[in-house]
């Protein structure tokens, strides 16, 4: 009886040791993965930062102004002026009858 008890406890100690070893190993693996992910996040952040800087650089007002000047013949963009503000009454709402118009579904003529 006593021998069996000893045997069982010895086996359980061995089992627990194996389990603890495995857990430890998994933890270390997770930590390594975490470090890797951190590095990746860091490099992606840096890449995003570069993209943001690039975007800001490409859309800086000075460059946009020059581009609108260069492409004036094509785009005909002018500085915003007060005359471009409209009033809500000036917006033409579609008349209720127009909703029933059967030609509505067709492509509008270009």
């Amino acid at each position, binding site marked *: 009886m006593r021998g069996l008890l000893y045997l069982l406890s010895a086996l359980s100690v061995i089992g627990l040791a194996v389990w603890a070893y495995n857990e430890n190993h998994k933890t270390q693996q997770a*930590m390594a993965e*975490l*470090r890797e992910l*951190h590095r990746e996040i860091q490099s992606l952040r*840096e890449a995003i*930062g*570069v993209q*943001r*800087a690039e*975007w*800001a*650089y490409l*859309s*800086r*007002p*000075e460059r946009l*102004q020059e581009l609108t000047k260069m492409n004036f013949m094509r785009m005909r963009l002018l*500085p*915003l*002026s*007060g*005359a*471009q*503000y409209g009033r809500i009454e000036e917006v033409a709402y579609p008349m209720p009858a127009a909703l029933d118009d059967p030609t509505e579904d067709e492509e509008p003529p270009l």
Partner: protein
Amino acid sequence: MTRVPLRPLARVLDARAQGRNPLYIERENLRLRHEQMRDVARRRAEWRLLFLAALFFMGYALIAARMGLLAMTPPEEPARYQPEQIAAHRSDIVDRNGRLMATNLVTNALYAEMRHMVDGERAARQLAQIFPDLNAEQLTTRLTDPNRRFVWLRARLSPEQQQAVHDIGEPGLLFGRREMRLYPNGRLAAHVLGGASYGQQGVTAAEIIGVAGIEHRMEERLRDPSRADAPLQLSLDISVQAVAAEVLEGGIRMLNARAGSALIMDASSGEIVTMVSLPDFDPNNRPPPPTEGNPTDSPIFNHALQGVYELGSVMKAFPVAQALELGLVRTDTMVDTRGPMRVSRFTINDFRSLGPQASVADVFVRSSNIGTARLAQMIGPERQREFLDRFGFLDIAQIELAESARARPMFPERWRELSSMTIAYGHGLSTSPVHVAAAYAALVNGGRKVTPTLLRRPDAVPGERLLSERTSAIMRQLMRETVTRGTASMAEVEGYAVGGKTGTADKPNPQGGYHRDRVIATFAGAFPIHEPRYVIIVTLDEPSEASGAEVRRTAGWTVVPVTAEIVRRTAPLLGLRPQSTAEIERALALR
């Protein structure tokens, strides 16, 4: 412990007398003594066992409690790995719409480590080819010097240069990671941003420190690691700033001015939407401070903040407002404007005489020095000083730029009657455009004090009351009249009612006295004046308008048209809808 004798004589004699063996007595006593000793030892052993058991129990309980605690707390990532102790990360700076104004970019620095160096001469030769500004001979002596272990070669490398250095194939040439501060908008808002440079340098990181402007003033906030991910949001609007800079630059060129500044500020919150100072510079490559010549000629001089000048007639708004506020006059009260006016040995003249007397409204609208000096006489020096102090004219500008400490207003130590009269029309008190903007905001916004700021502050509360609503409404009307029938007639912008005051001040001559032909022309005003949203201050340094028969330098001919153009271009960008003349007149008449 007293020792009991094993063979007490009394008992032995007694036993002998009774014919018993006295040895039994000794045995008996010995047995008792052993029993006693055993009991003591047992108690001690028991106590020790108990103590040990308690110790073990406590130890295990501690471990169990710790394990339990660990099991109960939510899992948490271990602390971030940090390569070196120098804090390299710095917050971005964005404008009020979130558009990037300053950010960090990772580049590489180049250094040489001698213990890995194979062929220093060849490396030096090839490096000199990649970087034309490096001297090959000097570099050779540095790279082959046996006493050196380490040489810094370049602070920043472009990717192409890095590849070229890589291609040399020299193991002694190494790259160090560097963050660099980048201002993608170039010269735009250069004076606000200031610039940055490197502080302490390590091999794998370097510290970025702000050297001027908001970068220097907000250093702690920008380097705070807990807020590194949150950008610092400014009150500036990049689009408005760009348009104002463009218009101002055109104005400076047309009017042959030396410099100029434009400031647009929210009239109720004090947020500065635009702060332009020209000439400007590229903060990515900040020029060194000037060591000789006039510091105001340097591009790093911020004319909107550091340009502390006597601003002339724009200051007339304050004695007029004070006289109205104190109830000394009404707008139709007639004031003696006979010139020249003599005060002790000093003469005050008007640019154009208004006749023997004029109403307070005319004194303001047609800018009479004599009339304003009379108002100052009525007010008295003490009350005037106290009034201007409350408007913030006697303190340094409370604005988040490193240079604000140098923008100290200049005024006479002893505020006598004569100085109070000259200060009334803008001579004797030198202030910066930022001061004027804050004070004009209080004049037009209903009389509430405004603290200028460059940071986004959507929840700003109105400050203390400096003027009554009524006086503020009268001032708005007078400023509007200055445009409709006074000195600033060119400030009329269709759809946007501009109101304000012009000022043309002779520049002080460093040799003493004033220049006859050099002026600072200023326009200070607000738009739309019937319900002011923005205060605008534009200054031009030494402008001259030569299209007519004679050269004109007054503000009405120089800075006012520039201001009008800035308002015409920026007001739609600021989200203001143009209003018809009838609407504007109705809104002004209601007050």
